[in-house]
């Protein structure tokens, strides 16, 4: 069962929620893996301090041209068909791997079989564990190479990794990147349920609307967690609460605004350790997620 944790806006508390929920579920005896899909800025490991057990480079497919077999200027079908300008004719076919989306069209198109698949490094996937030896909490984290523009291929590689044991039959929490464009769409792909984290500020609400539109477009079930609820500073949640009610969106949990929580997070601590009284909210959140999930998936999880 895959639960995505997303939000339109950055800084709403996605990672805080992901790491604490993962650790809490793990400590209650469930099999949990946290997939850090925010490969541009992965942060989950900071809170979980895992022992890294495995690290491997993740590669994206790119074309490799066999110039001997290439038919040459009279053909150029690969150059013509590539919509990403990753191939150019400069006396011979030249590759620009950083522009390549890895779609494989050039290989399909080449009449001479002159194009094979090479690869380039997108980043690394790291595997780590934390917690008890008999039921460790798994963390799988992607880290985009600095200067690499496209994160979706690395996110896809990470999620593919999640299809295999020991992750496949447990609970996978996906800590997603911010925004509503391709990295988020990729991270949400195939999730059984999504938790959208928001905060009751105009920026938070504006970006939550975009995130809700995204989930509706994808036709995937979701609910909302209100973080920093009733913020000090005379913060008023009425606008957010009214909107959520009008849109018929379930509020799964509310986390109160707390200076102590902010300090604990700043230091990289788990809230369930630093402020044990928050543990109950995570338990209630998990109940709410299960209660709100479409019956089929929730049932499936029980059988797994």
């Amino acid at each position, binding site marked *: 069962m895959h639960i995505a944790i997303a939000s339109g806006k950055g800084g709403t508390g996605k990672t805080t929620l992901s790491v604490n929920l993962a650790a809490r579920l793990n400590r209650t005896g469930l099999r949990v893996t946290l997939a850090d899909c925010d490969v541009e800025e992965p942060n989950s490991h900071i809170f979980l301090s895992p022992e890294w057990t495995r690290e491997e480079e993740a590669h994206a497919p790119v074309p490799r041209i066999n110039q001997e077999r290439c038919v040459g200027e009279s053909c150029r079908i690969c150059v013509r*068909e590539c919509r990403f300008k990753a191939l150019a004719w400069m006396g011979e076919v030249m590759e620009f791997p950083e522009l390549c989306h890895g779609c494989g069209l050039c290989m399909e198109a080449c009449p001479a079989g002159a194009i094979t698949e090479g690869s380039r490094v997108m980043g690394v996937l790291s595997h780590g564990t934390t917690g008890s030896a008999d039921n460790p909490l798994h963390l799988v984290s992607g880290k985009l190479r600095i200067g690499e523009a496209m994160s979706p291929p690395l996110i896809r590689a990470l999620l593919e990794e999640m299809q295999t044991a020991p992750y496949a039959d447990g609970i996978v929490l996906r800590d997603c990147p911010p925004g509503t*464009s391709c990295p988020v769409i990729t991270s949400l792909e195939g999730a059984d349920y999504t938790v959208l984290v928001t905060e009751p500020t105009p920026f938070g609400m504006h970006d939550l609307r975009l995130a809700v*539109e995204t989930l509706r477009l994808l036709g995937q079930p979701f609910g909302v967690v209100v973080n920093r609820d009733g913020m000090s500073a005379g913060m008023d949640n009425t606008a957010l609460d009214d909107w959520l009610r009008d849109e018929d969106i379930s509020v799964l949990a509310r986390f109160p605004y707390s200076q102590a929580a902010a300090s604990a997070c700043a*230091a990289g601590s788990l809230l369930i350790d630093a402020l044990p009284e928050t543990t109950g909210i995570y338990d209630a959140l998990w109940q709410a997620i299960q209660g709100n999930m479409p019956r089929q998936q929730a049932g499936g999880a029980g059988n797994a």
Partner: protein
Amino acid sequence: MRELLVISGKGGTGKTTITAALAASGPAKVIADCDVDAADLHLIARPHQTVTTPFYSGQRAVFDKSQCIDCGLCQEKCRFNAIADGIRHRPELCEGCGLCAFICPAGAIRMEERLCGEWYCSDSRFGPMVHAALGIGEENSGKLVTTVRTESNKMAQEHGVEVILTDGPPGIGCPVIASLTNTDLALLVTEPTRSALHDLKRIAGLTRHFRVPAAVALNKADIHSGLADEVRAWCHTENIPLLAEFGWSDDCTKAQLLGQSLVEYRPDAWRPVFEDLWQKLLDLP
């Protein structure tokens, strides 16, 4: 002309709050919002749109089901899972590569130009503004960012102003790279948290990669004194000027609720702070 970009790596550090306060102070400027994916600056700048332009980029596969012979080849070959259950197309996953159209033996698929969002030239309370909205789930945010930058440059020339102030997107990927290349200065907004420090190091790596000079503003400096010291020490070691520190203040939220910048919300307290930051930014070589 000087292009100043405000970025942070991590979201939620206060990029837009600081950009809005800079927009409300300092020299005459054009402001641009390059966080096309989840733009927020307009909530404060309250632009009045004068020109709206649709943004087309790339293509999308369009299926003619009446021609489909159910061979399943498109689904098998698509590497982006954009085709499911035979020919049910999932446009949000389509990269527009055209492979399906190329291989379809029945000619049931064609490629169409893709509307990805729109961009706007506006008059805002802080001067001319260029901003954009990427369609939900659309890609090519890098190209839309580039469009916003090109237009803000044109606008600065038209208005004869020397400074462009840009609110950047989070992360280190395509939209950030598109915002960063060939800009004159990146102001990195950070906060004293483990996460933000981690992301600051990555974003600083990116600015170095693209040879863009960087400076740091430390926001919420008082929420963790030990980590604030770490940020200061890191800036010193890396030789990145630490231009400003702001304490945590509920003015940020209060101003946001009123749709104001900090400088407007409490001018006596904040205007001198941001005028000083502008001076330092403009004094950098």
